[in-house]
Each structure stands twice: as C-alpha cells, then as structure tokens.
C-alpha cells in the first residue's frame, strides 16, 4: 500500500502542468482598449474590440538602463523598449487568443499596471462588459489602474514619456502622483468594479496627449463622468479638484491660485488639509444636502504688491478663498446634477446611510430626485502659515 502511494505521488508530482519559464512569457504592462468597426460580410459593419498590449523587451530595457551613463539620454532614443501588439475580436478573450498567433511568447497579465479605455468604447459600451474579462482572469490583479483616454486609447502610444520606459509605466506612475494633486482620481479595477456593480456613478481619470509638443507628451488630468456604466462627459482638472473636496479624498498638497483684486495681489494657496462633512436631510419627499468644507491652507507664493502680510489681510484672503472655493464646488455640483445627472459625489449613499428605508423607496427614481435636490455649500478656510516671510 505504501509503495503504491509512493508511486502514485511520484507520478503525479514529478511533472508540473503549469510550469512556464519566465523567458517564455511576455509580460503585459498595459492594455489599451478601443471600439472599432470592421467589415462583416455583405457590406455590413460590425463593432469589435481592439486591444493594444504593451510588453517590455527586457533585453532592450536592460541595455537602455546600462547605457544611460551620463544621464543625457532621456528622450534621445527613437523608440521605447517595448512591443505593442494590436489585435481585434468580438470579445476580449478572443482578441487575446489571436495574439497567440503573433507572439512566440505566452502573454502574461500578472504584472499589468494599467487598463486604458478609449473614449468611444466608454461612451457606447457599459464598462461592466469591458472590465469583465479582467475581473474574471486569474492572472490579472484587482490593483490595475483604470483610466479613460480622450480619443482613441491606441493613439496614446504616439506620445513619448521622457523618463518612463513605457507608456504604461508612465501612466501608472503618473496616477500615483495623486498624493500631490487632485486634478485626477486614481481608481483601481476593484474600486471601479465595486461602483459599477453597486449601480454607483464614478469619476475616472482622463489621459490626453498634450497638444503642440514634439515629441508628443502625455498628461493625466481631469476626469470622465461614468453614469450607469457609460461615459457621459468630462470634468476639467479644476472641476475634478472641486469634486475631490466634496468627497474628502484630497490627500493634501493641492495648490490653487487666488486673485484678491482689492489687495491687487495673487496668492498661491497650498491646501494642507481638507475636511468635509456632507449632511443629508429628507423633508417630506425632498432630500437636501449641506456640504461643509473646513480647509487649512498655507500661502506659498504672492504676486503683486510687496507690502508685507498682516493678520487682517490674512482674514481678507480667507474670505476670498471661501468665496472662490464655494463657487467652484457649487458649479461642479450643479454641473453633475443638471448636465450629467450623475451622482459621482455619493449623495445617494449618504441618503442610504442616514435614511435607509426612504432610500429603498426612492432608489429606483433617485437620478431625477438627485437632479432637483437643493445643495448648500459652506466653506471655511483657515490660513495658518505664510512661508518663511510675512
């Protein structure tokens, strides 16, 4: 019996069905997806998914890293040390299988950093469908950063990052900069998926090519408004900032220029801390919201009159900052309520938390209720420091 068991175990464990050497894998760093029309017999056209996958050519990457030496090499090479493979299919899985006919290595998605979705695809298809393949895949991770491209995702490859060795790595690292700016919002696959399955609207970062640059440069700035799983419009970087203030996702370090005409000066305020309180109340059948923002800021720059700052002047600056931030927040809330009817700021969730029974009764009709709901914004800015000079 023991011998039989030993033979069985030896037979089963001696080989490994899943063994695949790393040099036979092609590591996908980023996948850029678009919607394209292809001819589908008898003159008709059919929408298909187009995937462009970016994979590092490790040999060239290593050579590039070693050859930099003096540090003057950035942007000098004509091409990035990556391979872009574009395939199409009626499903993402089909398209990826087609890639097997063009790559001698097996594509591996375990190190994928970003998923960039083209504008047309995001407008016409529900993102639940788009993300389904990645959510199911055993290789891909929930930590993949999900971004929207203004225009075609594939066109983003025409840009050349200055420092990063691939467009995907640039987008990933740029997304991590949210700690310094709230002009975009970093969401990973897990967060996007949770929002979509929870029937919640969400903002996704926008990737654009900076116009007028040669070679072309990229920027992650502003956000796309996803309503019912589809892209319905964009928020500018400034509007995105204001949306961040309401949701309280600001990590500090945000800078806003603040013109104060009565002092004939422009100040740069660094928002060190933004505390938000969103209160909901249901009166009759009408929900009302009060957004209170408590902001602590430093003055880090002053342009204009050289007269030193004083405490009364700081109070004036605070009042102006209150006003400016309030205007921006009110504007973005109004735009989201009336133009997009997208509850990306989570007002519905507030109602659900505070009035769960009323929420159950109205959630089917929430979008129209939300669009009409009065929102009061109160802002209180406190300036603490003025830098090393007064």
């Amino acid at each position: 019996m023991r011998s039989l068991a030993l033979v069985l175990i030896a037979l089963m464990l001696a080989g490994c069905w899943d063994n695949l050497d790393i040099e036979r894998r092609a590591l996908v760093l980023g996948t850029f997806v678009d919607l394209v029309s292809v001819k589908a017999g008898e003159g008709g056209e059919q929408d298909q998914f187009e995937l462009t996958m970016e994979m590092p050519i490790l040999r060239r990457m290593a050579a590039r890293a070693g050859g930099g030496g003096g540090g003057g090499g950035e942007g000098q090479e004509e091409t990035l040390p990556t391979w872009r493979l574009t395939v199409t299919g009626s499903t993402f899985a089909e398209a990826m299988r087609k890639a097997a006919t063009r790559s001698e290595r097996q594509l591996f998605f375990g190190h994928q950093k970003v998923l960039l979705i083209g504008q047309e695809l995001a407008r016409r298809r529900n993102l639940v469908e788009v993300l389904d393949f990645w959510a199911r895949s055993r290789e891909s991770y929930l930590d993949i950063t999900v971004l929207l491209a203004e225009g075609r995702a594939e066109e983003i490859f025409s840009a050349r990052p200055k420092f990063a060795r691939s467009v995907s790595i640039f987008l990933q690292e740029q997304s991590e900069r949210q700690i310094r700016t709230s002009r975009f919002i970093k969401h990973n696959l897990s967060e996007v998926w949770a929002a979509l399955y929870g029937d919640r609207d969400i903002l996704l970062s926008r990737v654009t090519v900076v116009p007028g640059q040669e070679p072309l440069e990229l920027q992650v700035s502003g956000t796309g408004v996803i309503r019912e799983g589809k892209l319905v419009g964009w928020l500018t970087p400034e509007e995105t900032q204001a949306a961040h203030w309401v949701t309280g996702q600001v990590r500090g370090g945000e800078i806003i220029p603040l013109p104060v005409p009565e002092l004939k000066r422009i100040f740069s305020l660094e928002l060190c801390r933004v505390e938000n309180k969103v209160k909901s109340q249901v009166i009759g059948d009408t929900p009302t919201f009060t957004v209170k923002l408590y902001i602590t800021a430093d003055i880090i720059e002053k342009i204009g009159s050289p007269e030193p700052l004083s405490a009364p002047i700081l109070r004036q600056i605070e009042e102006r900052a209150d006003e400016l931030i309030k205007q921006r927040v009110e504007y973005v809330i109004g735009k989201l309520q009336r133009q997009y009817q997208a509850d990306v700021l989570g007002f519905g969730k507030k109602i659900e938390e505070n009035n769960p029974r009323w929420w159950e009764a109205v959630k089917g009709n929430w979008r129209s209720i939300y669009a009409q709901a009065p929102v009061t914004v109160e802002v209180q800015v406190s300036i603490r420091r003025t830098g090393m000079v007064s």
Partner: protein
Amino acid sequence: MSTKERIGTAEAFFLTIAVMIEVGTLIGAKDIVDKVGVDAWLVSPLETLTSLGAIYLITRLAMKFPHLDLAGYSRLLVGKWLAWAVVLVVWAYWIGIASHVARVAVDVVKSSILPRTPMEVVLLSFLLAAAYLAKQGLEPLARACIIIVIVTLPLTLLLFLLVVPRVRLDNFLPFLPQGPWPVVKLALWRISNAEEMSLFLILVPFLHRPQEAWRAASYGFLVVMVVVITVLTTCQGVLGVEKLKYTLVPGLAVTQLAEFAGTFIERISLVFVSMWLILVFPSVSALLWATSYLLGRLFTLKDYRMLAFYQLPLVYYLANRPKDVLEVKSFFFFLQPLGLVVLVGIPVLLYFIALLRFRGRAGL
C-alpha cells in the same frame, strides 16, 4: 482506542485552530453578504457567542464521560442501535465536510495557481497527503498543527493587515437597515459553521487532562474567530457589499490589493493562497483521522488508522461530484442543517438523557 494516542491541552488548542481554519475563511464573506447585506460584519462577532454556546454544550457532554468517546457514551445513553445511528450521522457529516473542504481548496488552487493541472491530480495529491498525516495518528497530527499554526497564521494575518489601509468605513454603512433580526437569525444558523468543533465529541478521552477540554476548545475557537472576523471585516471594508456578492473567493481577491512598500514584491496573493492551503490541510487530515476512528469503533477494529486511506475513494467521489464551482454549494447543501444536528441537536439530546439517567454521577 490506542492508549498511546494522547495529546496535551496545548496540542488540543493548536489542533482546534488548525482544523477550524479552512474554506469558510476565504468564501465566508460572500455567503454572509448574500444573506444580510451591509450588516455582514456584525454576524461573525455574534456568531462567536452562539457557537461558543454549542461548543460549551459539546465539551460539557464529553467531559461528563471523560474516558469515553461518542460511540461509548451514546451507547451508554441511548443503547447500541441508536448509538450506531448517531455515530453514522456524525461520520457522514465529517466525510461531507472533508469532501467539501477538499473540493473548495482544489477549486481555489485551480483558479489561482495551477489552472492547467487537472483537477483530479490536485485533488488526489491533496487527499493522499492528508490521509498520510491522518494515518500517523492524533499525536503527530497535533504536533504538525502546532508547527503549521505558528508558521503560517501570523504571516496570513500580516497579509491582511497590509490591506487594512484600503478599508473604507462607508462600506459598513448603513447600520442595521433591515433591523437586527436577520443578523441574529444568521448568527444562530451559522453555529453550524463551527463544523470541526464537533471533533470534541471524540477528542476528550485522548486528552491528558480531559477536564481541560473546554479550555482548549474555547481558547482555540476564539483565536480562530479573531482570524475570521479580521478576514471577513477586511473583505467587506475593502471590496464593499456589491462586489462581495459577485466575488467567488473574497479572501483571495482582497489579498490581491496587498502591497509592500517599494512594490518590488508583486502577486502577494499567491503567497497567501499557498499559506492558506497549508492551513487547510490539517482540517482534512483531522477529519479523515476522526472518520477512521469512528469507523474503527463501529466495527471494533484494533487498528483503524489505515481506514484514512480506504475512505479516500468516497471522499474523492464526493469532492469531484459537483460539475462546476457554482454547483459546489448546492451539492453540499446538506452540511449546514446536518451541522446543526451534530453541533446542537445530538449534544442537547444526549446531554439531557445523561442528566436524567446519571444525575449526580460525575466522571463516568
């Protein structure tokens, strides 16, 4: 029963921890969320109290007969034939649990690290290794549990701590939107999730100090519940209720978001799966040992331990029977009600009979 097989209270404590941590830790969050939604995080703390009640009952019953196991004291209490029936029910329950745990473990391995390896091979390897340990007897099994728990449990918990910064408090709100009753009901129903605690129906006579059975069982169970509550609460806090409903293995999904500073170590979740698999292994081993022991007692065999191997075809068949991952739950549907019978029904019945028949007599 082999008199050589004795374990200390500390060994029983580690055995409890090792056998209790199995598939429920990984998939439990989804099951709870499906039933009570956003209040899922309240269920496990409450379930700890209700399950402790059941464990107290089992150990009290067993400690009334410190030198007898289930077969022995049930024969004393309800007669030979009814005792046979009781033992058979418990045996069937443990075989079912072993099959279920093995199947879910294999599904997780298949869908995370070994997709191309045939399921039959993974399952058979897993069961053979588990049966090998079971065949060595209770003492080696308990010692293996000590090593396994000390090595893997802190690392597993550390992985979950890495994800804690991603917990969002609003994923726990609103608070009790449906009122407290669904949570209480589920906490009572989930007594049956303390499946392996039923091993104390036979473990007490193996203890050097049978009077410490309750201590070993309750302390071990509390440690397990700390792990369970940490894992389930993290799952809900990170993934949110809606995503949990669609995630088959939430425990694994959550660890995909774990990252070390520096981020040069990627795919940490695979480390988690590997460690978790090591933790699941003693559960199946202990169940195979227990079922072998029960069969040995039923048929009064001198050496029951080889039965661990002889039972494998049945366990393999049951584990392999559900056609797909979605059918596993419905195929093993009987485990939940049967769990209540084994963890509550049988102990209550036997305890009352013992009270009536042996009132005032202790240490039988």
